[in-house]
């Protein structure tokens, strides 16, 4: 017991006096959380009004064409900039590139005719939608469908105009019928645990993501001290004091596990209290303390084992810093730390399961976002423990071999 006390004291003194390690372990992830929570706020803000800028040229200048544009404006998803009705397509094109419009809508002269007031079937084309090639297919499809739906409503409205008496007789309120259908749909976010309404925000993604990333960054201070101990004969001295390889490894696992726990507490506090001060949403946590502790322990075990493996393989501290840093960045990019997994294409999402950081992130998201419990993070935790155990066994083998040479 007394030995554990001296090991903990030594590790914390060494780490506490190493400004660079402290910066990597605590300042870097806090900075990432603050920056990324702010930077990705709009991407995650599902209730925010994200308006698409659209150029409009109304060549028809009729009641139906104006009603069509007004109906779209009422949706709140579009911001229209009106141009003269005689503006040529070439001028519209130039304006799009000049002022960064992704879309332009031209309502053709026969728009009202097509709307059905005069019943003519002569007009084939009612509007032209100009689209920049950089627009994604999904955005284009959603936009086109919205226009088509509103066009249909416009046509119905004008077809039913003049039939007010009949509608009154039937008890139909035309005004109410033409209102947007948004209020007819209720959105509910589902969670794994008890049903609890929770809107995902950028801070819900940033805190667990950069928390996992920072936990894996123990590779830098741990490998640096371990390699220095090996190269300067400290491990040899400790071995001669009848300190076993298992105790040597345990002497690293325990202090760095405590460091990981401090990181978790600090990052959660930043998410709950600091991010809102900067205008972001506060981090909301789940109810399962047990689940949080389990996934934290699993990520910590895996990250420290990874750090020990790097330390046992690397010959110098520079070597370890490079290997550890590069691997961490690759695992982070692959595991949805840097870019949320849901914006990745399918094959990249499949590939992300190869990264232990992805398992850790999923576990934390289960707790923070999906209100999961111990059982919900069991799968990810087991994966992390197994992976950590494999790395730790390999490390023990390498260290024993190197020290006996």
């Amino acid at each position, binding site marked *: 017991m007394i030995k554990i006390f*001296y090991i903990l004291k*030594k590790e914390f*003194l*060494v780490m506490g*006096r190493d400004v660079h390690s402290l910066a990597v372990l605590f300042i870097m992830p806090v900075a990432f959380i603050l920056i990324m929570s702010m930077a990705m706020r709009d991407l995650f803000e599902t209730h925010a009004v994200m308006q698409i800028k659209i150029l409009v040229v109304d060549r028809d200048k009729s009641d139906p064409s104006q009603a069509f544009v007004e109906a779209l404006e009422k949706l709140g998803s579009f911001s229209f900039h009106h141009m003269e009705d005689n503006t040529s397509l070439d001028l519209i094109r130039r304006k799009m590139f000049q002022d960064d419009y992704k879309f332009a809508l031209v309502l053709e002269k026969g728009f009202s005719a097509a709307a059905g007031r005069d019943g003519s079937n002569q007009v084939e084309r009612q509007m032209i939608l100009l689209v920049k090639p950089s627009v994604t297919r999904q955005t284009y499809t959603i936009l086109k469908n919205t226009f088509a739906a509103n066009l249909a409503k416009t046509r119905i409205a004008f077809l039913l105009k003049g039939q007010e008496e009949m509608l009154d007789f039937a008890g139909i309120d035309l005004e109410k019928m033409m209102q947007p259908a948004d209020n007819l749909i209720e959105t509910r976010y589902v969670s794994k645990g008890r049903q609890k309404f929770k809107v995902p925000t950028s801070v819900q993604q940033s805190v667990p993501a950069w928390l996992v990333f920072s936990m894996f960054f123990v590779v830098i201070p741990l490998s640096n001290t371990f390699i220095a101990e090996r190269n300067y*004969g400290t491990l040899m001295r400790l071995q*001669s*004091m009848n300190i076993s390889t298992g105790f040597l490894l345990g002497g690293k696992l325990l202090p760095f596990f405590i460091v990981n726990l401090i990181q978790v507490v600090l990052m959660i506090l930043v998410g709950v209290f600091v991010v809102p001060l900067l205008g972001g949403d506060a981090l909301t946590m789940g109810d399962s303390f047990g689940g949080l502790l389990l996934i934290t322990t699993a990520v910590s075990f895996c990250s420290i084992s990874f750090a020990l493996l790097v330390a046992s393989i690397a010959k110098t501290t520079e070597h370890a810093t490079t290997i550890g840093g590069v691997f961490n960045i690759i695992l982070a990019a692959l595991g949805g730390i840097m870019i949320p997994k849901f914006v990745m294409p399918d094959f990249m999402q499949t590939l992300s399961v190869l990264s232990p950081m992805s398992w850790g992130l999923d576990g934390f998201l289960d707790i923070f976002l999906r209100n999961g419990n111990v059982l919900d993070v069991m799968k990810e935790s087991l994966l992390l423990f197994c992976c950590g155990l494999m790395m730790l066994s390999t490390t023990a083998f390498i260290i024993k071999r190197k020290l*006996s040479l």
Partner: protein
Amino acid sequence: MIEISHLYKSYGKFVVLDDINLSIHKGEITGLLGPNGAGKTTLVSILIGIMPRDKGDIFIDGMDIDKNLQEIQTICSIVPQNLAIYPMLSAYENLEYFGGLQGLKGRKLKARIDYCTEVASLESFLNKRVHKFSGGMKRRLNLAIGLLNNPRILYLDEPTVGVDTQSRNYLLEMIKKINREEGSTIIYTSHYMEEIEQVSDAIAIIDEGRLILNGPKEKILKQDFNLSIRVGELSEALCDRFKRMQAVTVQDGCIRLKRDGRFHDNLIEIFSLLKSHAVDVIDFDSRDNNLEALFLKLTRKSLRDA
């Protein structure tokens, strides 16, 4: 104190230790001398129990190393060649950490730290961080840590590497003091001949994994003792006269006498001849009669890298 018989160790086909047989006596300082890569550190690592051997028996203080390693390690201590200390910790924190890991605590730990820092003259620097220490101070702390468990056997693996002359002399005095006051058996590895000569009671020379010479220092040095007398210009006749004498050689203005049964007679005759021929005696030199000469002779004078 330490009995080694037929010890072998190899890395693959490379033989590091080849049939080492050595006895180290209790309370003595034994200098383990050898060029780089001779096998000194490997031998010490095996004796301290952190490296397996291929073959051979080792008994330390009457205990078989295979059966009593744990007990052996409690009475031994090693001061590694590298500075096995934490630069970001103070001297006290380093001593406390290594002492604590050896099971020392409370007053006992404090008393050992006090003793070790006094021996190493580090009392005034206990709370100073080690990265601010000079090279000599770091070496002294490295050695002080090795004394924490009051070892009956102390292995010093090139403890003076990279320090200035004053610090080296201090360290050598410190080692002699430890041996005198604590009665520790000390195994001192080095490739600095003058250090081994200065501190050792016994010498073992190892080269290419083989023990090529060992025994009490005085006996070893005397067996190849020479005296050089640098003189003024010698006539050819006088030169021939000297060359005809047994155990005497003349070369480059130097007359060399080997220590054998005729040493004193030869010495008297040489001086009387020099006086009668009015030849000046410029200098006496016995330096090439020291351990360095013997070492270079035994290891065939060639530079070999490990």
